[in-house]
């Protein structure tokens, strides 16, 4: 806190209503988690966008790397049998 350049970057996740999952809405800087939560409330939910907020320090997120895209994601491209598309859905079953 002695230098505002030390303010950490936080990622903000907002759940818009019951039953939905939290969705990433953006990021902000704050000196600690409580202030991050307050900042997120004021910056991202002031127009009634949410009923729940998560904040997490950006540095605590481990992410896949763009240059690993080929080995990470491409193998799933040609595995059509992983999609449940080979089943006959009986008449009368909705929302599938």
């Amino acid at each position, binding site marked *: *806190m*002695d230098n*505002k350049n030390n*303010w950490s970057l936080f990622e903000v996740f907002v759940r818009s209503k019951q039953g939905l999952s939290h969705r990433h809405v953006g990021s*902000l*800087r*704050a*000196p*600690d988690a*409580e*202030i991050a939560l*307050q*900042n997120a*409330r*004021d*910056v991202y939910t*002031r127009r009634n966008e949410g009923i729940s907020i998560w904040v997490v320090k950006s540095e605590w997120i481990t992410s896949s790397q763009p240059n690993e895209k080929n080995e990470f994601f491409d193998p799933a491209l040609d595995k059509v049998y992983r999609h449940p598309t080979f089943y006959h859905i009986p008449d009368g079953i909705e929302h599938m």
Partner: protein
Amino acid sequence: MSHSVFSQFLLHLGDSQLILSHRLAEWCGHAPELELDIALANIGLDLLGQARTLLSLAGEEEGLGRDEDQLAFFRNEREYRNLLLCEQPNGDFAQTMVRQWLMDHYHHLLFAALSHSQHKALAAFALKSLREVKYHLRFSTAWMERLSLGTSEAHAKTQLGLNELWRFSKELFVLTTEEQGLVTEGLIPNIEPLKAQWLDVVTVELQRFELSLPETGAYRSGAKQGLHTEHLGFVLAELQYMQRTYPNMSW
């Protein structure tokens, strides 16, 4: 008789919200961080919303046909009934937070009490505003903690802000003799005993913040007599400029 006393009491509440709101709006574009800029503006707009309701109610009770805009824009300094604490300059961020924190604790107790008013519109207003105030208090408390328990420079600035503002705290919760009549009529609860509660909670919190209660022999008051510090005139000059120059203009 009690109509005008009651409308003056509502003006006192509404004016305090309006002037404090204006002070917070002055931070717009100048706060230490973008996020604080938005936060202070949000709180200011909450207070402005409260002011609108209170001034409208005051206008109705007054019965002279003045609406919220006429009350806000066409009264002069001596007709304003806001707490002197609200009109004090922002100073630095620490001083603004001290003022806000003192006012938030005041609002918290005041609105909880007013929610039991037999005046239905006032009670409903107080109940609704209490939700906003609880968040304001959470915000200002978090910053009081961080400033006072942070660096020595932040601590010193917070203590200076408190020293500067404490002398305006005496008139919180004070009722005039006429307003005691409103208590008898049940229009408002007796809010004077809340002063001791306020002082208790503020004192305990200040100890937690390692701040000392300023000793002052020179308390200032004058809200309900319209006797203000030199700062209110400048606030009103800015707040009322457009309506004074182009009366009843709108966009």
